[in-house]
């Protein structure tokens, strides 16, 4: 495999898009290619992630983006892997570049749901679950993670304050991120007073519906040996799957695909969890951050819930978790989220996030889950 780098990134502010997904995606693609110091014609393949383009009556986004970039002859594919769509696109780009099928590839993740009301958007989100066997039986997305949270709380001793501390931490980080959807801190009181969405999950346990677009340029070291920015060296790019339906899982105290992807990624990178300086993990709900940290091996089973309360996962803690604000507060534009995690790591490594800088940036991990873990991506990055 060829050594593969992330060499440039682009992202808009997550929240509400006042333009179409196509326009937003093309703009961040230009930003990322410019950031990398490349020309669009140096892109050999474009991988576009999008889940809900049909709500804008638009599929087949890839060629439209390439047209807008002036490279209509470049191949593209538009792919969907629920909330892990753009990390899946990144993995495809990695496979192409590392395998020698492309010297440079463009990854674009874009989502727009802000033109829909909450009820309709809740319905669309739930389509990532098993429609006839979960959604049709009353599952919502918060409802499925709430079921996992209930199982976790029944097994391990936790308090609402532990989950509240995760929300408070991630909002504090997002307040220092100009690209974040929610740029405001919250207090534990605000968390505890917020209404229940699906018990035990309160409003502030949940990520928002966000619009957003993010792009990442991936390139082979041997083809572009003199990058403009400090590149992220892709030490591991791994995908894993698991049985989709919660009703077919033997264990509700974690996501099997996270465990599998994490184990494979650490093996591929020849690293142990203790070697990672900071992480961006999939915190669509506060319980998801807890499960992720345990599934990836950063904390023993049943113990991660208290880490935010104890400050371990704060920006200046032993393991900074979601310095961007995470899905929880930076926002969750479904198919842009995974690429967005990579933007945060790139910006931290390049010193572009001074207000929320983490102390050590030699190695970082990005963890991105599709739905309730039917799919999962883990990427580990290092420096040259």
């Amino acid at each position: 495999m060829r050594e593969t780098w992330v060499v440039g990134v682009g992202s808009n502010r997550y929240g509400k898009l006042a333009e179409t997904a196509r326009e937003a995606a093309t703009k961040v693609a230009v930003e990322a290619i410019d950031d990398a110091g490349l020309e669009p014609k140096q892109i050999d393949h474009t991988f576009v992630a999008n889940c809900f383009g049909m709500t804008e009556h638009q599929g087949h986004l890839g060629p439209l983006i390439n047209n807008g970039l002036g490279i209509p002859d470049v191949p593209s594919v538009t792919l969907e892997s629920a909330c892990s769509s753009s990390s899946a696109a990144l993995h495809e780009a990695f496979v192409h570049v590392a395998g020698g099928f492309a010297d440079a590839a463009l990854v674009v993740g874009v989502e727009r749901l802000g033109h829909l009301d909450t009820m309709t958007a809740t319905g669309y989100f739930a389509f990532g679950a098993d429609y006839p066997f979960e959604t049709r039986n009353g599952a919502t997305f918060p409802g499925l993670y709430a079921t996992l949270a209930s199982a976790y709380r029944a097994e391990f001793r936790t308090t609402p304050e532990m989950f509240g501390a995760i929300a408070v931490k991630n909002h504090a980080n997002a307040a220092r991120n100009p690209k974040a959807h929610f740029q405001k801190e919250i207090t534990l009181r605000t968390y505890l007073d917020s209404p229940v969405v699906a018990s035990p999950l309160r409003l502030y346990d949940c990520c928002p519906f966000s619009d957003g677009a993010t792009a990442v340029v991936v390139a082979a070291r041997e083809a572009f040996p003199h990058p403009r920015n400090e590149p992220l060296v892709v030490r591991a790019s791994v995908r894993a799957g698991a049985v989709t339906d919660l009703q077919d899982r033997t264990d509700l105290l974690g996501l099997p695909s996270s465990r599998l992807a994490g184990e494979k990624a650490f093996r591929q990178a020849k690293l142990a969890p203790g070697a990672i300086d900071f992480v961006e993990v999939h915190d669509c709900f506060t319980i998801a951050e807890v499960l992720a940290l345990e599934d990836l091996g950063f904390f023993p089973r049943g113990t991660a819930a208290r880490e935010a309360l104890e400050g371990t996962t704060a920006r200046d803690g032993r393991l900074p978790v979601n310095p961007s604000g995470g899905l929880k507060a930076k926002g969750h534009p479904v198919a842009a989220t995974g690429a967005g995690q990579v933007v945060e790591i790139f910006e931290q490594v390049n010193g572009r996030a001074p207000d929320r800088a983490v102390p050590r940036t030699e190695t970082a991990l990005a963890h991105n889950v599709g739905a309730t873990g039917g799919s999962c991506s883990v990427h580990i990055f290092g420096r040259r």
Partner: protein
Amino acid sequence: MSTPPHSVSEFLRAYESGGPLRGFRCPRCRVVTATWGLACSRCGARPLEEATLSDRGRIVAGTIVVVASDEFVNDAPYAYVLVELDGGGRLSGWMPNVHTDEEIAPGTPVQFTPGYKPGVQFARIAPGSAEGTLR
């Protein structure tokens, strides 16, 4: 009349007609599933054997859904539960008029019951009732 394997629509029709609930049993590891498939999701063996599932079981985990999707918006709040069926297989379903976590505590006995809308609906079984009085 069904020809193996059960189709998804046969599963769904059973929910609406009041059963019997459809499922599959793995020919190798014997695990029972209430989800449609062609091979065992645990060991990969096939073909699966058709199975009829019990209409009774106990809650494994669940939630009270307050913010519902449009299909359930007029029913919220309601319970969404995972149920371990007697004799094997887990099935998810909803419970109307259940508003507290205490009512869906793990181990609570429930019975599948034909509902007034598509999907699997459960009702709690009154404690101490041999007849399984629904409440």
